[in-house]
């Protein structure tokens, strides 16, 4: 299982796409980071007089993590698309199927490999706000909860991407459908805001990824939010396992 995860990660870093994604992601986050710092410098003088005014953490780190989530939403499909779709296209799945591995091990192995890539990416991203600690006091609790939120968010992205990749032999289709699906989950609470009925809006609010990410950004770690992410991950990994099993039966 871990062999598979390591192989997956290793092969990811052999692909130029991965490096390009890492570099561009870093570039975008850096730019956003600078604009947030800029903005903070402008308003700093005005708000410093107000008691209980937002500090560096609230003004820079939290918006940055929020933006990083959007960027990850865009790049996650590109990384997860190849997971199974490409193997299917290259006819390399039989290698795994005829090895003494269960489908569960195959799926978890691939999942962990890709997840470790995103964890590396997250560490790179988090270095930027942490560099502020050189000149400012940071609220590490809030940052930790924000990073936890981002990690859970990415873990859900990966699980969903893995499932959609297992449905097709075309990586592009996997990427597009993953993006569409993630985006839908991102904005699904907009329907809730239009107040059709209280019940549907509750459901849509609950389904929305964003609604569960925001509290974590504010430093609120609710077990219901954690449960939501874990449910998403487990459900989509199970779907993937079922899907690959079904393929063997037909």
């Amino acid at each position: 299982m871990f062999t598979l995860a390591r192989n997956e990660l290793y092969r990811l870093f052999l692909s130029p796409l991965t490096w390009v994604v890492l570099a561009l992601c870093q570039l975008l986050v850096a730019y956003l980071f600078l604009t947030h710092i800029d903005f903070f410098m402008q308003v700093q003088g005005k708000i410093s007089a107000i008691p209980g005014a937002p500090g560096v953490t609230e003004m820079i780190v939290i918006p940055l993590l929020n933006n990083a989530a959007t960027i990850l939403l865009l790049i996650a499909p590109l990384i997860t698309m190849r997971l199974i779709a490409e193997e299917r296209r290259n006819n390399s799945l039989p290698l795994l199927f005829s090895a003494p591995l269960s489908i569960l091990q195959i799926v978890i192995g691939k999942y962990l490999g890709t997840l470790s890539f995103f964890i590396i990416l997250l560490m790179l991203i988090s270095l930027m706000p942490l560099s502020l600690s050189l000149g400012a006091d940071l609220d590490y609790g809030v940052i930790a909860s924000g990073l936890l939120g981002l990690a859970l968010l990415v873990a859900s992205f990966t699980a969903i991407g893995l499932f959609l990749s297992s449905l097709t032999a075309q990586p592009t289709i996997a990427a597009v459908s993953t993006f569409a699906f993630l985006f839908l989950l991102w904005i699904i609470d907009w329907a809730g805001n239009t107040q059709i009925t209280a019940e549907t809006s509750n459901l849509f609010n609950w389904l929305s990824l964003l609604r569960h990410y925001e509290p974590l950004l504010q430093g609120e770690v609710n077990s219901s939010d954690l449960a939501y992410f874990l449910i998403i991950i487990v459900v989509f990994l199970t779907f993937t396992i079922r899907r690959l099993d079904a393929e063997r039966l037909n």
Partner: protein
Amino acid sequence: MSSSPLLSAQSLSHYYGTHLAVNNVSFDIYKGEVLGFLGPNGAGKSTTMKMLSGNLAPNHGQIMINGYDLLRQPKQAKAHIGYLPEHPPLYKELTVKEFLYFCAKINLISSKHINSAINIAIERCGLSDMTKRLIGNLSKGYQQRVGIAQAIIHTPAVVILDEPTSGLDPIQIREIRHLIRDIASEHSVILSTHILPEVQMLCDRVQIISRGQLIFNDTTTGLNKQRQASNLLCTLLSPPPLAALQQIIGVITVDTLNPTQFRLHYQPEINPTAELLSRAVTQQWQLTELMPEQHSLEDVFMNIIQQESSIVEQTI
């Protein structure tokens, strides 16, 4: 030959939708045997191979590998098989060595033995000069070898090769065949192909599958016997009248191919060769060529398939 088979398939069937791809196929393979699976395209060869390797679950039937049920104890059973599908499953961005390392790992070779396992596989498949090359940059023949190396790296009891020589040039085909013979000295091999001479060169036992059904199962010698035709081809520079040839005991009919060349059909029990020779000498027919004719493998193949389908039609 040991009494219990290494791999035993019992009444395998598989449907694709409503299409019956493999119908009630049963066979055994014993230690050290090379079993050839022969059949036209679309006969169900690959489907059977997929089922044997655990890539496809049969709708009916049972597969026992070295005493383990492939469906009930897949992990233990799969540890005893090596599988090379029609398209070799390779990660083109890895080097040969990296790829084989990964294969050794997922086949649960302990880290103590992993290097020796890789080296043995590399050596046996003639990949020693290629270990640092990217698989994607190798020629098709070498990719096929990497595929075979992958299948034998964990020294499985049974190696399943699905059309291992398809798409290769004649030299590569010869090399791969040589390699397969070599592998067969240590593993049992199941080989699927639609090339008849290949089966004759490589296999101890032949099974012919057509339209999902096993219609012939015999040793290669048995297949060769089927090829014995009761025909003699002879060239006589000063031929006697046809009637003289027809009088030879056993001869049924004589075809005149050209003024000096004849084909004699004879009864299978009575071979007239000796008689023909002595008459040709005493009566000075100037015999210059005498050749027993063999059916080509293709003929035998077509015969068997046609016989079967006519039987099937009759029963319907």
